[in-house]
């Protein structure tokens, strides 16, 4: 029974592939609507060996990582400051929770004018969207540091810097990584969207370009590449978390 459970997800995947291939071969729909699995796989292989398409992937990755890294640095700082200072929390918390549900994407046209049509506006938007989960989770973590631990450290004569380094940061780190876990897919979403809306390079642009040239097999190959990239980035965060944070596991997808 347990063996059956292990193969079930692959069975599901296989069923979807078979249904897709059957739809492609049935001739009921145009090849444009359901390109055969073989042609998508071929295009994906071509994608992997073409330097130009790898360059587009690198452009998207660079934008996502640059925005994410900026958001991580600023977000951890601001979030922990909010967590340790009532005044900062009182001033900034309404700002972040009030604008949390507002789609920051709406600022993209303004950002294009401010930061230019190239990578600048996209990195800025990735930064802004990733900032929220990271700030909120670091705030949450830094606020909830066990008071007993803080008192003990103070009693034993730890300085403020030592308390920060040895108590507050280790206690907040699991939450920071939970925020990262939310922010990484967001970074990918924003990069792809902005590249689809207005760009001349990147994977999102490649999707729109392949569609405009009516090569849906090529487009789906790019979709597969984007999916793979998003999946690997998430895995990288999990890997880094498991290596760095061995004292507490916080398996949260949600904010």
């Amino acid at each position, binding site marked *: 029974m347990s063996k059956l*459970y*292990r193969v*079930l*997800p692959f*069975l*599901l*995947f296989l069923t979807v592939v078979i249904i897709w291939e059957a739809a492609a071969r049935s001739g009921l729909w145009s090849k*444009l*609507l359901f390109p055969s699995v073989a042609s998508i796989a071929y295009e994906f292989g071509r994608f992997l060996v073409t330097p130009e398409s790898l360059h587009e992937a690198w452009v998207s990755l660079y934008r996502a990582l640059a925005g994410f890294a900026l958001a991580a640095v600023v977000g951890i700082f601001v979030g922990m400051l909010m967590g340790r200072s009532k*005044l900062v929390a*009182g*001033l900034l918390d*309404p*700002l972040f929770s*009030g*604008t*949390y*549900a*507002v*789609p*920051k*994407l*709406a*600022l*993209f*046209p*303004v950002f*294009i*004018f*401010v930061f230019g049509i190239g990578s600048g506006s996209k990195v800025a938007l990735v930064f802004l969207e990733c900032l929220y989960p990271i700030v909120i989770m670091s705030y949450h973590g830094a606020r909830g540091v066990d008071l007993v631990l803080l008192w003990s450290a103070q009693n034993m004569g730890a300085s403020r810097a030592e308390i920060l380094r040895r108590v507050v940061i280790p206690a907040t780190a699991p939450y920071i990584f939970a925020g990262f876990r939310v922010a*990484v*897919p967001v970074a*990918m*979403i924003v990069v*792809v*969207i902005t590249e*689809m*809306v207005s760009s001349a390079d990147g994977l*999102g642009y490649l*999707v*729109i370009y392949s*569609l405009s040239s009516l090569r*849906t097999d090529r*487009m*789906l190959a*790019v*979709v597969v590449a*984007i*999916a793979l990239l*998003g*999946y690997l*980035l*998430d895995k990288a965060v999990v890997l880094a978390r498991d290596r760095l944070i061995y004292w507490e596991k916080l398996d*949260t*997808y*949600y*904010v």
Partner: protein
Amino acid sequence: MGLARAGFFLSLLLLWQLLSLRGLPAYVLSPLEIIRDFGAALGSAELYEHAGASLARSLPGFALGTFFGALLGLAAGTARWFDRAFSPAVFASYPVPKIVMLPMFMLWFGIGDLSKVLIIALACFYPVFINAYYGVKATPAILVWSALNMGAGRGAIVGRVVLPSAAPMIFAGMRVSLALSFIVMFAAEMINAGSGLGHLIREAENSLRFDLMYVSLLAVAILGYAGDRLVRFAQRRLLAWQEQPA
């Protein structure tokens, strides 16, 4: 605290307004100008038409996505075979930006509203599914055992124990989904639409109508904020018996 907070925001706005006196680039309007333009737009029918078109896409998508997300998430949390078969696919595809499927959806379901509603539903499905799933998993075993002891059937346990226990998590997922629904709606309209706030902002951008750009920006912000408040209000009313998360 409230006073300090209000003072902080007012001084931010004041600083912005003062900067505009010194001359800002044409694409940065001052707060007063934005309010004036927004007030003027409220008096015309155009803004309502576009906002209505946007809501007609995002709300059905949100409803569809959260309904199936909650349903399948509860199913995956309670039925082991369904969990093993279905959940890995959901978790593996969670970090993938769902918007990339929009062109394919447009080919399958046409370039009208249906493809946009479905892509919004797809994006909204994930947070609710995952939260419902973990919500079910976090149900205290002792409650389930007590119910079993008192002779409750499977249906009663799911309906009276598991669902109420998972409900706060489901609502948390709905809040994330709602924010996502506005992002995806806006993106889909910016990529391809003849109406809606995303379309309006693109038009404004292309014709350098900065006033219109900020009007649609503010309209989206207000809709997103109001929707979030509504979900929180619904949560407080429906789950009044539960401790509210801080």
